[in-house]
Structures are given as structure tokens and as C-alpha cells.
């Protein structure tokens, strides 16, 4: 094992320990219970942002992740409330459904690049919201409310996940679930980026024509990547629906789509863990500035602009972290 590998494993261990042990410990000691929800949100939003990052990775600006998050939230909510399916089964179905929609939409629109793709995805967010308002199965404007908390998941009588409504602290349970999702999602991303798959994606991002002429099936690859991206969006959205126990057509709107994209930019498009850090800073930053009252938005935007001026290639372009983040 090389030194580099050893460092990586150490960094991973440190990350896992801080997410699953240190942060809960600090929260318990300091009594800031409300950070659980904020961090849960960060974890889930960073899963959706990871999807956007993946589409950036194949050279597409994706401002449509809100649409897939909303689709995911509705699929899960409908399955749980109308079909009585366990949330834990509905979660992957929500992701898969979002992925399927992505394949259908992606086939025609992934041919586009640059702002053209960006605009279509932006319109897509609005289309899904309007469809949610118009379709009967989504219960229209009234939304789906009073969704039960996730129930028990057991296989052969062995309880894998306890019933959330029965446990003492569902906040903590949601936090652990969200973090587990996040870790799984970023592990998958890391693997994609550092395998040949990642090289193929980068070849597409940098020169689609050349990639095509050396035999890369870019049409197939980009649909697959877009589907994975939307899968992340769907899962993130479904989980949010479970926490809020309600879904409305306006649960994820254009602003969310834009936020997902901004998370990626802020963290750095060249770094796998960019969207995670970007989400943390953008989302958590807003909460921290809560004390500023009416100047909250002013200070928030000024800080944001300053960060962009100093680090136009994202937060992670500060090289203090070669150990943790593989530079692409």
C-alpha cells in the first residue's frame, strides 16, 4: 500500500468518524439539536447536487435537478400514501423513476450543449411543477400531506431499520440515514470519476467529437450519466418528502434547481467533493447568518461574491487538501 493510499484511507476514516460520531457527539454536548436538521438537509441537498456535478462532468450545465427531486418526492409520497408501500422500498423506486424520466427526456435534449441544454433543463423544472399542479395523481395544488414516518424495514424478521415513529429521536435517525445516503452517493461518484468511466466522461466534456471518433458511444454514456444524476436527485427529493411528511408542487422549484447548480460551482467543478462542500457552505452559511436579521441576504451575497472573486474555480481550488480530494 502506497503512502497516498494510506493517507486516503485515513482521510476517509476521519470523515466517517466525524460525520457519524463526532458531530452527533458535539451536538449532544453543546445542545444544538437544531443542527441535526440543517446537517440532514445539507447531506440530502449534497446528494442532489452531486447529480448536477455529474452532468457538469460530461460538460452539461444542469439547471433541472429540482424537477427530478420533485418527481422523486412525489413518487415516494404516492407509493407510501396510496399504495401503502414501505418508504424504504419507495426510496429506490423514486430514484429509479426519476432516472427513467431522465432517460426519456435525455435522449432528445442531451444532444444540446452549453446554455441551450441549461435552458431546457431550467424549463423542465417549471414543467414538472406545473404538471404536479395539473395531474390528478399528485393531488394538485393541495399537495400530499400527512405522509407517515418511515416504517420498519426488516428482512427475515431481522430489523434493519426501526420504525421511525417509534424511536425516541427521529431527527437523529434521519440524520444518520441522510449521511449514509450521502456517503454511498459520494463513494459511487468517487468510483465513477476514478475509474475508466470517469476518463470517458472527461473525454466527452473536453471534446465530444474526438471522443466519438475514437469510438466512445457518447450518446449512450451521457444518457447513463444523466440517469444516474437524476437518480440522485430523485432519492434526495424523496427523503426530503419523508422528513417534511408533505409534498407540494412548490416543494422544489426553479430556485432549488439553481441552488443545486451553484453548490457545484462554489465547491469547484473539478473536484468530486466540491458539491458537498459547496452545499455545506451555501446552505449552512445562510442559517449561520440568521442573527443578522434583515441584513442576512446582503451579507450572504457579499460573502458569496467575495469568495468567487478570490476563488473563481471553487472553494476546493485552495490546495490545502490534496490529501482528501483527488484533483481532477
Amino acid at each position, binding site marked *: 500500500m502506497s503512502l497516498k493510499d494510506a493517507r486516503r484511507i485515513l*482521510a476517509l476514516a*476521519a*470523515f466517517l468518524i*466525524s460525520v457519524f460520531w*463526532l*458531530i452527533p457527539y*458535539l451536538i449532544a454536548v*453543546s445542545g*444544538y*439539536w*437544531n443542527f*441535526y*436538521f*440543517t446537517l440532514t*438537509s445539507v447531506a440530502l*441537498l449534497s446528494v442532489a447536487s452531486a447529480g448536477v456535478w455529474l452532468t457538469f462532468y460530461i460538460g452539461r450545465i444542469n439547471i433541472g435537478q429540482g424537477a427530478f427531486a420533485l418527481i422523486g418526492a412525489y413518487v415516494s409520497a404516492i407509493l407510501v400514501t396510496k399504495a401503502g408501500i414501505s418508504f424504504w422500498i419507495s426510496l429506490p423506486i423514486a430514484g429509479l423513476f426519476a432516472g427513467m424520466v431522465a432517460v426519456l427526456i435525455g435522449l432528445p435534449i442531451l444532444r444540446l450543449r452549453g446554455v441551450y441544454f441549461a435552458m431546457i433543463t431550467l424549463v423542465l423544472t417549471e414543467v414538472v411543477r*406545473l404538471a404536479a*399542479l395539473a395531474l390528478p395523481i399528485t393531488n*394538485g*395544488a*393541495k*399537495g400530499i*400531506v*400527512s405522509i407517515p*414516518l418511515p416504517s420498519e424495514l426488516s428482512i427475515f424478521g431481522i430489523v434493519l431499520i426501526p420504525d421511525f415513529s417509534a424511536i425516541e429521536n*427521529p*431527527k437523529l435517525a434521519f440524520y444518520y440515514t441522510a449521511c449514509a445516503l450521502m456517503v454511498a452517493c459520494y463513494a459511487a461518484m468517487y468510483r465513477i470519476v476514478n475509474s475508466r468511466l470517469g476518463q470517458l466522461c472527461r473525454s466527452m466534456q473536453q471534446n465530444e467529437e474526438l471522443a466519438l471518433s475514437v469510438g466512445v458511444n457518447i450518446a449512450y454514456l451521457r444518457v447513463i450519466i444523466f440517469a444516474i444524476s437524476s437518480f440522485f436527485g430523485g432519492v434526495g427529493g424523496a427523503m*426530503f418528502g419523508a*422528513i*417534511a*411528511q*408533505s409534498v*407540494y*408542487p*412548490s*416543494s422544489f422549484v426553479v*430556485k*432549488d434547481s439553481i441552488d443545486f447548480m451553484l453548490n457545484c460551482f462554489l465547491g469547484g467543478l473539478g473536484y468530486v467533493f466540491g458539491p458537498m*462542500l459547496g452545499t*455545506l*457552505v451555501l446552505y*449552512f452559511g*445562510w*442559517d*449561520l447568518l*440568521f*442573527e443578522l*436579521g*434583515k441584513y*442576512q*441576504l446582503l451579507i450572504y451575497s457579499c460573502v458569496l461574491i467575495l469568495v468567487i472573486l478570490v476563488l473563481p474555480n471553487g472553494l476546493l481550488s485552495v490546495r490545502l*487538501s490534496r490529501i*482528501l480530494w483527488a484533483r481532477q
Partner: protein
Amino acid sequence: MNRRSIFSAASAALLLSMAQGSVVFAENPLLKIGFVGVTSGPAAAWGISNQRSMETRAAWINEIGGYKIGHVMYDIEIVSFDDQKDPKRAIAGMEKMAQEGIHYVVGPNVDNGAAAVRPVAEASGIMYFPYAFPKELYTAPASNAVLGMVANYQSGPAIYKYLIDEKGVKTVAFIAANESDPLSQRDSGLAAAEALGLEAVSANVTYQVDTTDFTPVLTPVIRTNPDLLVLSGVSPANAPQLIRSARELGFEGLISTETAQDAQVLREGAGDLANGFISVGGASTPEIASDMMNEFVARYTDMFGEYNDESNTKVYALEYILATLAANPAGIDDVEEFKMTMDTFEAPNPYMKGDAVLRYVGTSSFGQRRQLSVPLVVNVFNNGEFETLLVAEVD
């Protein structure tokens, strides 16, 4: 590594600011009341009128030495959280309120926010006072939400009935923004109108929230030539444009809405064209405003430069919370005590002339008392001012 350092810096910053916060008010014990709502972006007016009316009232109370609950005088502090009209943020806001040990929170302002905070509020023992109408929030088994205003399915029938009797209205048309809250309000308004025997000649036309020119939207509606045009759930920003476009298209019937509006905005945006426009308001019209209401308006204007008539209805939530706590001081830390008091609570309404009372209502709509009895004041706009058309009460 990075994440951890940000986290600890954050905790430090928060601790520091909280320490400062508690130093400022030292004389009386502090009672914190929360506000979670939208104070930035397109719908900012809703939340800001809410927040400002609470801050005005709190400053006023503190100036005169505090609010007496039990044997203690409390200073009131308003803790506000801007949810940006995003249900995810609203949950974070409610968590923050729980963190601050707050048990009474005004808001959120929209349906999806109110629905989203419900799990947190119930788990953390928070009573919240949304300005959102979904009945599920107020009907058992839900018990922590209290509707902060008159719902449109309550005010609508009162207005329609009045217009049928007094103005001979027979046909009605609805127009709403293509968004959850206005659409729900349109649907319930439509049901109410039909129950009263009105014929709905147009109820399907909607507009995008970001519409700035309503002529194309209204053209087909006006063609149906209704006696009454209802602007369901219209935001104060859109109301003057809608009125203006309708009048310019030659519409001569009545126009009404079941949401609160601001006279200044109507005056600027539609001028004389808004004459005769019927909306729901609070109690600031001269006919019914008490001295206390007038002083409230004066103080609000002092503090923030300009009054917003939407605050007429929004002044009540804070007053109700404090008065109910005064009636049963045990409620300060225990919302179950508060809930028990709600069923019997009654106090004079300081903002209205006459013998109006503050009490909790809602049994006929929700099966339990989970609504503030805010006077249902129906105003008509005339030459730049609101005049009271009728006053009613909801049960």
C-alpha cells in the same frame, strides 16, 4: 477536516451572538416569541408585514415595562427566521425556534411551509400560527397549529352572501395564480359560491405568478361578463394590475378578493380604477378601530416609515399568545396547558371599538378550536382609502 472547523467556528459564532443577545435585555425576564416566514423575495410583503407588526407590538410592550403573565413582567423578544418561502428552510427555522426554547411561533405564510413544519412543531412542543388554509393542519389529530386569520372558505361565503343580497350578484368568475395556495383558495371559493346558488361562468383561468401584464389573461374572463370577479388568493403585488387590466378591458361588475390588501399599493397601482374593490381587512378603518389600533398604526409607521394594511390582521397572533399565557401562565413552558386554556379563553379585543372579544374558534370548520377569532372585516376601497362594508365573526 474543513467541515469540522467550519462547524466549530459556527458554534462559536452562534454562542457569542446569543450571549450578547441576552445581555441587552436585563431587567425583566425575557419571553421569546418566534416568527418563521418569508421576508425576502417575491412574497416578502406577507412575512414582513407579519414580522413588523410583531416587532412594533413587542417594542411597545417593552417600552411600557413589559407584559404581565402570572406575577411576572416579561419583556418580549421577537426571533424571526426568513424561510425564503422554501419548505426546507421553514423546517430549519422551526428547528431553530425549538433550539431557542421557543414554544410559540407565528407563521409560516404559505401552505407547503406550514405543512412541512408540522412534524417538527409537534415533536418539539411548539404551537404555531400559520397563515395557510389547509384544513388538515387544524383538524385532529393535528393539534399544534392555530389558523392566524380568517380562511377564505369562511370569509368567501360571507362576502358572496352580502353581495347576492345587497347587489343582486348572480354570476361569478374566478381567477387565480397557478400556485398551490391561490388554487386551493379558488377551489374552496368556487364551492362556497356554488353552494350559495351563484353561477360560475369562468373558473379555470389561471396566471403565472410572475405575470406583469394581465390583459391577455383577463380577456377571456371578461368576455364571460360576470357580475362578480373574484381574485382568489391574490397577492398585494398583483391585485392592482389585475383590477386595472379588468377595468381597462371595460369590465363594470364587482371585483373582490378574500385576502388582505394594502391601500397605498392599490392607490399607486390602480388609482381610481380600484374604487369599489372589495377585500378582507383588519380593523384599522375609522369606523371600528380602537385607540389602541390607532396607536399601533402610528408606532408601526414611526418604526418602519410606512404602514402596511396587511398588518391589520397580523397584529392579532402575538396578542392572542400573550393574552392566553396571561390567562394561564403555566402555558409558558407547556403547550398542553395552553391548549387546555384555548377552549375557554376569552378576553376583550383591544384593537376594536365595541365589545368584541378575543377567543379561539374553528369548531365548525375544524372540529376543534384552532383558529383565532379575528374580526372578519370586509372593506371596500374608495378614493384611496378602505371603508368598512361589513363586520362579521367566524365560529
